[in-house]
């Protein structure tokens, strides 16, 4: 099968195949329109040890008003995929489209406009806020860079409004990041992301460094903001339960590829790819009885080096159900149920065999 065909397969994997035209006029927006899109994206980094294929053929679409969840372990390429949507990394091949426009080769100057339309919230709010700036100044920064407010008074009003939206008191505007708790700082990160009224917000592990009791607050806040403002999210996390909770559709990544995509219910209840099934079985649940009774699928070894990924199926070196065919064919992301796709020659069958083994 050609690269081209594979890309088409993957495309419809995470978008309905209604044939939305590319390059449409961004002004006339309909519900469900594609906000951002990756087409057979590859991002390779040269390193002394060889070329790291961080992302190696990923296609996805994010539609207006939805949350697309991206889950994977370290080295899966999920964060690099998010960075590519902002053009914070340069694609090696493939295309990045935002609002129908191909931004893959945009110049640094034009990218400034893109960064208003696609905002990002990072894992560590401590590291993403300038410690010398007050909270108000941090939130005002995108307003100034993108010339969104006229004059200081209007800017202050907008900063107040943004603080209120994320549930922070207005007087926090005069504080510095170190005076805030981790949860408050992440709220500031979200306010900054909202400042430019973006079409898409890429949330890269937004709750990973927060205390458990604060994680729920931030997840509820993100969902409320989405409901009230019609926001579109790409929610990237290693926490399967959080991705399941937050997403309308989700994709599971392994070693630079999407290996399974579908609705959270499909992925959670009926995983088709052996990697997804192993990942699900590894997630501990806060129920001692269930933990004692459950049978884990323990994967052997570690994720292979992205410098030299295995030929054929990339998961075959750790797959408890790998068969000779798996070394020969690189499986495409194929539909197995409506809106549910998996890149496995023995999708479902291998999972059934693993679970009864």
């Amino acid at each position: 099968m050609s690269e081209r065909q594979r890309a088409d397969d993957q495309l419809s994997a995470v978008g309905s195949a209604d044939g939305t035209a590319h390059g449409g006029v961004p002004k006339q927006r309909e519900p469900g329109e594609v906000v951002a899109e990756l087409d057979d994206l590859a991002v390779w980094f040269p390193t002394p040890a060889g070329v790291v294929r961080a992302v190696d053929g990923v296609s996805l679409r994010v539609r207006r008003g939805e949350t697309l969840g991206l889950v994977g372990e370290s080295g899966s390429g999920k964060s690099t995929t998010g960075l590519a949507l902002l053009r914070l990394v340069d694609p090696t091949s493939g295309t990045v489209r935002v609002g129908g426009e191909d931004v893959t080769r945009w110049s640094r100057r034009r990218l400034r406009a893109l960064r208003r339309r696609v905002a990002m919230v990072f894992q560590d709010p401590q590291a993403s806020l300038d410690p010398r700036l007050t909270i108000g100044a941090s939130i005002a920064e995108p307003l100034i860079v993108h010339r969104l407010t006229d004059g200081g008074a209007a800017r202050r009003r907008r900063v107040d409004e943004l603080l209120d939206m994320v549930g922070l008191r207005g007087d926090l505007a005069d504080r510095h990041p170190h005076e805030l708790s981790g949860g408050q700082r992440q709220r500031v990160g979200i306010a900054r992301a909202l400042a430019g009224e973006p079409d898409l917000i890429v949330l890269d592990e937004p709750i990973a460094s927060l205390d458990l009791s604060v994680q729920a607050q931030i997840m509820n806040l993100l969902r409320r903001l989405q409901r009230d403002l019609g926001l579109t999210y790409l929610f990237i996390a290693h926490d399967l339960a959080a991705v399941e909770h937050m997403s309308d559709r989700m994709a599971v990544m392994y070693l630079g590829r999407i290996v399974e995509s579908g609705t959270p219910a499909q992925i959670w209840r009926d995983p088709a790819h052996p990697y997804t099934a192993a990942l699900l079985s590894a997630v501990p649940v806060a129920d001692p009885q269930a933990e004692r009774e459950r049978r884990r699928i323990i994967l052997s070894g570690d994720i292979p080096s992205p410098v030299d990924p295995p030929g054929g199926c990339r998961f075959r070196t750790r797959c408890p159900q790998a068969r000779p065919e798996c070394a020969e064919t690189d499986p495409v992301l194929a539909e197995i149920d409506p809106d549910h796709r998996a890149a496995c020659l023995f999708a479902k069958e291998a999972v059934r065999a693993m679970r009864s083994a």
Partner: protein
Amino acid sequence: MKPVLAVEDLTVTIGTRRGPAHAVAGVDWAVRPGETLALVGESGSGKSMSVLAATGLAPRTARVTGRVHLLGMELTGVTEERRRRLRGRHIGFVFQDPMTSLNPVLTVGRQVTEAAEEHLGLTRRAARSRAVELLDMVGIPSAGQRVDAYPHQFSGGMRQRVVIAMALACEPDLLIADEPTTALDVTTQAQIVELVGDLQRRLGTAVVWITHDLGVVAGIADTVAVMYGGRILEQGPVDAVFGTPSHPYTKALLAARPDPAAGSAELVTIAGAPPSPLDLPAGCAFWPRCPVRGDARCEHELPPLVPVSAGHQVRTFYPQPSDGERR
């Protein structure tokens, strides 16, 4: 059975520029041979500090009071040298970041048995074959060759296995695991959890496992102590604490995680953030965030730890009914 390690009324106060930080404000726990005690809590709850102080590893600026018994021997008041010997011989440590325990310029083989050479008097040659044995025991493939490799040549999960081998080299009576899987991927975490459980069953080691992850606790613990603001708010057998959580904090914490089986309803949240050890509330540390919130007594008076069932204790004036009783 007598506890391997027991602490009584332990407090740790650390002098800072902004005043004394009450990192641990009076804690009692014990762990018996072959048993796993999980200390669970959010950042700043004092879970790690209570263990570091009990084993004599608290920072120099810390003032530690209370009593600590290791295998019946009083650890408080003994000389630093004696404490170091007892610790080295009887306790193994595994920390969150394996690189904090590993020396990047020594082969893993040397490091795994360094302590054993000192505490058990092994010769170099015996140490090397013991190192291979230990690396093999923790599941490092081709241990015979890998024994001469350096830490950077291992993945994160494999490095943590090396640290576990190091911790077990002296056949300790107690293994202290401080967030040992927090930096690892979930599939690697499953491997490490399984490995520690398996080794514990074979060697009969007692384990104190410090974590913020309630799912991990449910899988590994026999008993659990939930810490908050430097104190234990609830402790007991893992089934009792998870099955009938009686402190409003434990109950809220268990409800705050998204449950894929329960659909995508709004999550239960706990308002605000955990208290600073520099500024602990006078009464119940959880009172400012508590959904029950009781009365003025909660605000001003420290609730005692009271029993609710066999071995299950809770520090609140208002123990929560279980969901079953409420219905």
